[in-house]
């Protein structure tokens, strides 16, 4: 499941929807990314997150498929928000469902690493004064 959306989400609900179908799943590793209050030593007020939506869906679907196959996942969920996001709001959720924990950890890390590198999203940070477009370093 890939979701590109403006609105917030509940981690419990999103996991439950998928987990209920897989009673053989013993392990779910999740990553949640948040808007931080401080970046490059500047006070962040909020972000404007831009997305190339059609490509993001395609890119994340491919990435999800790769992760699912490589680590034999039962399922995998990626949610990425866009629009105006304030400090402490969730930006991204990746959940990897597997029988045992090792695969769920490795798949989630893999997906986050490539999401950061390739998924077409751009953050513009707004500070007390001014704004900056960001670029992912690692």
């Amino acid at each position, binding site marked *: 499941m890939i979701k590109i959306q403006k609105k917030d989400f509940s981690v419990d609900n999103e996991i439950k929807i998928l987990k209920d179908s897989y009673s053989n799943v013993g392990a779910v590793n999740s990553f949640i990314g948040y808007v931080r209050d401080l970046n490059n030593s500047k006070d962040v007020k909020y972000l404007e997150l831009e997305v190339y939506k059609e490509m993001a869906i395609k890119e994340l679907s491919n990435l999800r498929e790769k992760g699912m196959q490589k680590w034999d996942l039962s399922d995998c969920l990626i949610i990425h928000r866009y629009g105006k996001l304030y400090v402490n709001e969730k930006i*991204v959720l990746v959940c990897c469902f597997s029988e045992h924990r090792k695969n769920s950890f490795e798949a989630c890390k893999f997906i986050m690493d490539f999401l950061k590198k*390739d998924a077409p999203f751009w953050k513009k940070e707004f500070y007390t004064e001014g704004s900056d477009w*960001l670029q992912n370093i690692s």
Partner: protein
Amino acid sequence: MKIRYFAWIKDITHKDYDLIENNYPKNINEIKLFLNKSYPGLKKHIKEDILRFAINMEYSPTNQKLDSKDEIAVFPPVSGG
């Protein structure tokens, strides 16, 4: 052919996209020539090889042949997640 712009590229092009009917660029190198000519502000970023290009929503090799119906996207390094 549609050429779409994202993030701070738009701050330079002042538009979301260009539509090219005739004499459309035949590969990414020709896209770069088009951009250099239409948006001088992009020149240094193209020279420094900072921009990323997608053809029909996929990262593609620069020598891939383009079709008149293709959607090209031009954007800076991403910052999602």
